[in-house]
């Protein structure tokens, strides 16, 4: 899923202050799982925004809505009736949701309430971990299902650097050394031999380095 975090109210206010009616739109998919932009967080942000404005003697009309998925047209259209009566939309979707809203509601300012961070997993309640960079050519099969591109701070492909200590990364002790994890996994699987071979330079053309990516499938088109 996509993991995001809410922006500080100060920054949100700077974006929305010029509008007198704001539609706050959440997304009940990924950003609900990471407790940043689901229906709960949407209600919370709408209330907080009201309070924040009241403090400055302002009283914009604030309406809240939450979509099942903010990145799919069929869902986005569900708020079509609310859009005309608001000057701007404050989105609690990820970056994809914000831009999808902007594509559908082309004449409406759409503002992000979240900072979109990464593709990751819910490791436990309250902890989300980045584990995929979307490089476009999955190499997990060779590395015991631990991604060196994502989990190593230096994207090393040929083993741990000299900064790996007690399973921690030199960058900060809150980061686990991805290469220690790869080695541990492959050791458990009895497949350490996979690591002795030289791994040539990565083909980054399938990643964002090749430009914004797009998938088109005839069988899926209407």
């Amino acid at each position, binding site marked *: 899923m996509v993991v995001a975090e809410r922006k*500080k109210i100060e920054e949100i206010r700077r974006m929305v202050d010029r509008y007198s009616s704001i539609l706050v739109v959440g997304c009940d998919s990924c950003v609900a799982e990471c407790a940043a932009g689901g229906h709960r967080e949407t*209600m919370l942000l*709408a*209330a*907080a925004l*009201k*309070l924040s404005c009241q*403090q400055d*003697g302002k009283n914009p009309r604030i309406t809240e809505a939450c979509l099942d998925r903010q990145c799919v047209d069929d869902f986005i259209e569900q708020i079509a009736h609310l859009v005309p009566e608001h000057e701007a939309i404050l989105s609690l979707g990820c970056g994809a949701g914000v831009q999808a809203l902007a594509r559908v509601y082309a004449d409406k300012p759409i503002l992000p309430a979240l900072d979109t961070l990464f593709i990751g997993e819910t490791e436990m309640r309250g902890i989300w971990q980045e584990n995929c960079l979307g490089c476009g050519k999955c190499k997990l099969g060779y590395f015991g299902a631990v991604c060196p591109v994502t989990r190593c701070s230096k994207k090393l492909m040929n083993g741990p650097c000299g900064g790996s200590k007690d399973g921690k990364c030199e960058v900060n002790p809150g980061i686990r050394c991805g290469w220690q994890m790869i080695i541990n996994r492959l050791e458990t699987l009895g497949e350490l031999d996979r690591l002795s071979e030289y791994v040539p330079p990565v083909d980054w053309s399938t990643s964002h380095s090749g430009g914004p990516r797009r998938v088109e499938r005839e069988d899926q088109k209407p």
Partner: protein
Amino acid sequence: MASPSSTLDDKTLNILVYHCRNLLLFKNGEQKSFARSRPGLRLVAVPCSGKVEAHHLLKTLAGGAQGVLVLACAENACQFLEGSHRSHKRFEYARCWLEELGIEPDRIRFVHMRPMDVGALDSILEEFSQKLQTLGSFPPQQEPLTPLQKAGF
């Protein structure tokens, strides 16, 4: 039943109380009369304090309350096991929000209570309203515009 306190007579002081039903604070019909005798006070019974989320607390303030009170069972007495604990975490989260917004976090208060102790509720309310008095009104009164400002200068 305890008599209404003098501070609660102040009509500007709106307080909303979310109280867990399992505290059994009021018998049939008593809640209404308790509230009626204390202007500005609203009581909302919830099936468990765990039902009260951060957005309820903020919304209540945004809706005009000067203060919000959450009355919960002791953590080890919660009928839903984790409800009271979660409620407290949500309350703490709402306080963080208020801090970020620059609003006094003391406008919301969380109290673990013993069941059926409506007498304690009166002293809690008394103390809470005194606290709210010192905080002043919310939203803060805006300075009236001077004639020059009104004219757009």
